[in-house]
């Protein structure tokens, strides 16, 4: 019985698929390093040491992972309802912009201020996410196209808003720096991690992981969302209001991405640069796919990608490998997760052959 089950689940064993995709992504990275005449082993060792070498670097890795975790949750949450949220970048920008405005203009006692700050990021992202949700539910506009359009609307809005209203003293292309006391940075955390970018955002991300897990697994809302994702028509037949769930799902996904923007722009970097669509919005797709859209999976895959992203600078300083190797590896992993059917078949055939030879021996 257990054997039969194993055979059935082999092609859809998410852990096996994820590991295969990661290995192939790393192999692709190794080939690219070797191609330009660098030693892949030293390249990877510097890449991982750059992410984990000392307390400060671990802190930076965790701060990088924070944003990825929230974006990954956003994409994963939409996936569960059968929606593809490719607009996390735009939602991050709007959430980050709202939070940056609050950080510059609102002055309140610290605990209350944090609530307002987090709320602003959440709200900004939720608004940017709910629009495609409504368009999908009400007019059947494909959410992929709608969110891409929303990305660029956010991109250009920020592009003109920041220089006009939040301009820094020196550069035209970025907003003024947020004071530490008005950001997500906390002195005790900075001290604990020897002056790294580590900030309160990490705890927001952890709370979100738990909350999302709870919503999806333990609530009626989560059940409805997943039912819509499994089979829209079946859910409708069962009396679940599909359109309402689509709107809610996109709203929550947008809110999570908005929080990611909050942690990035008021925690990690403390200012907004214009003319950049945050790449985390797309890396988050990789995080969600690799984590099999499971909150716990998202947690671990975001840490993995966090290491890659925060270690690439050190690797570039120590070797001749350009930092874009990390992005290439992440992108390759997405491609291999999309094509995981292939590994399913390969693993399947390997196991079949082994089982056959085992039978022949008997």
């Amino acid at each position, binding site marked *: 019985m257990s054997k039969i089950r194993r055979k059935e689940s082999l092609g859809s064993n998410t852990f096996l698929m994820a590991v295969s995709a990661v290995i192939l992504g790393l192999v692709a990275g190794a080939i690219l390093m070797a191609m330009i005449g660098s030693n892949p082993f030293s390249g990877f060792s510097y890449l991982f040491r750059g992410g984990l070498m000392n307390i400060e670097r671990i802190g930076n890795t965790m701060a990088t992972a924070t944003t990825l975790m929230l974006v990954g949750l956003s994409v994963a949450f939409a996936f569960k309802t059968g929606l593809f949220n490719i607009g996390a970048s735009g939602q991050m920008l709007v959430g980050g912009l709202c939070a940056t405005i609050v950080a510059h203009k609102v002055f309140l006692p610290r605990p209350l201020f944090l609530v307002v700050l987090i709320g602003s990021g959440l709200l900004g992202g939720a608004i940017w996410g709910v629009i495609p949700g409504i368009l999908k539910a009400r007019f059947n506009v494909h959410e992929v196209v709608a969110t891409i*359009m929303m990305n660029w609307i956010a991109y250009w809005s920020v592009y003109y808003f920041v220089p006009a209203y939040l301009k820094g003293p020196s550069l035209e292309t970025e907003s003024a720096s947020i004071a530490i006391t008005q950001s997500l940075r906390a002195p005790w955390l900075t001290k604990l991690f020897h002056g790294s970018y580590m900030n309160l955002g990490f705890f927001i991300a952890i709370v979100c992981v738990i909350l999302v897990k709870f919503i999806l697994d333990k609530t009626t809302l989560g059940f409805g969302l997943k039912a819509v994702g499994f089979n829209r028509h079946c859910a409708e037949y069962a009396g679940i209001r599909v359109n309402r769930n689509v709107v809610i799902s996109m709203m929550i996904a947008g809110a999570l991405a908005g929080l990611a923007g909050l942690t990035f722009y008021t925690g990690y970097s403390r200012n907004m640069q214009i003319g950049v669509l945050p790449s985390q919005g797309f890396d988050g797709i990789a995080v969600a796919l690799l984590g099999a859209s499971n909150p716990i999976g998202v947690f671990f895959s975001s840490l993995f990608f966090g290491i890659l992203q925060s270690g690439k600078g050190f690797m570039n300083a120590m070797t001749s490998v350009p930092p874009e190797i990390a992005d290439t590896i992440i*992108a390759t992993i*997405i491609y291999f997760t999309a*094509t995981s059917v292939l590994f399913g078949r390969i693993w399947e055939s390997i196991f079949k052959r082994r089982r056959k030879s085992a039978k022949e021996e008997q």
Partner: protein
Amino acid sequence: MWSTLSSIFPYAIAYTMPMLMAALGGLYSERSGVTNLGLEGLMVIGYFFSAMTIKLTEATLGVNALALGLLAGTVAGAVFSLLHAFASINLKADQVISGTAINMIAGALTVYLARTISGSGNVRIMMGIIRKNIPVLSKIPIIGPLFFTQTYWTTWICLLIWFVSYFLLSKTSFGLRLRACGEHPSAVASAGVNVRLMRYIGVIVSGALSGFGGSVILITYSGEFNGTVAGLGFLSIAALIFGQWKVLGILGATFFFGIATTIANVSQVIPSLMIVPPVYFKIFPYVATLLALVAFSKRSAAPLASGQPY
């Protein structure tokens, strides 16, 4: 007003052409039944490989290097699109995710290679196409100054490709088969057409045209590979939808977007446009696309089987 218009028109046309090529490529792919979200990445690939080719050969080949670069970019785009074709046709992968992966791989890989070669990640070429007035035609009043002055020769190739595509897709049996593959693949298959082959052709053509579009950016108004085509590929997808998956509609939509973008770029130096903040011109194409999608939601002209594996 007239002088403004006649001075920005050549720029608008130059800006439209790469978009037109990528959108046309997207049309081939969508019509054959494969959603190609990777147009942006395929343009970047063409952009990069044409820059590399021209940089390596311009010293010896002179002006001919530009044509060679154009060819290299086209071929590179076609080859790279095979990744998407293999994933979505043979492996029945999620085409949206595969397209996203193509975008990300292209963006990261080209900058990775460019950095290794040039250090800074930018690849600058020495020359570009010299703009020319078309003899006789540029003397025609109104039309002459708008369409036939200060033109790049690539513009005419793009228009020729557009015209050939129009003919190919709507007047030939090949076009009929390709379109049928995107509407009802099993019916076409039962009529003896190789659906997979047609879809491969659709995706490869989309890669080639996007790569061509990326190369056109380089040798016309850019002159330097800088790692991104700034969302032009996504704008092409918007144009494809806004043009309702029709060859003529795409020409209109891309030109419309080209004009809007050009106006946004120059609006701060032209007094009559200064009253409108440039952000409105910049977001206009995207808002227009969303509105068009809402307006056409009842009777969308999208190919029925687009995005569905066969």
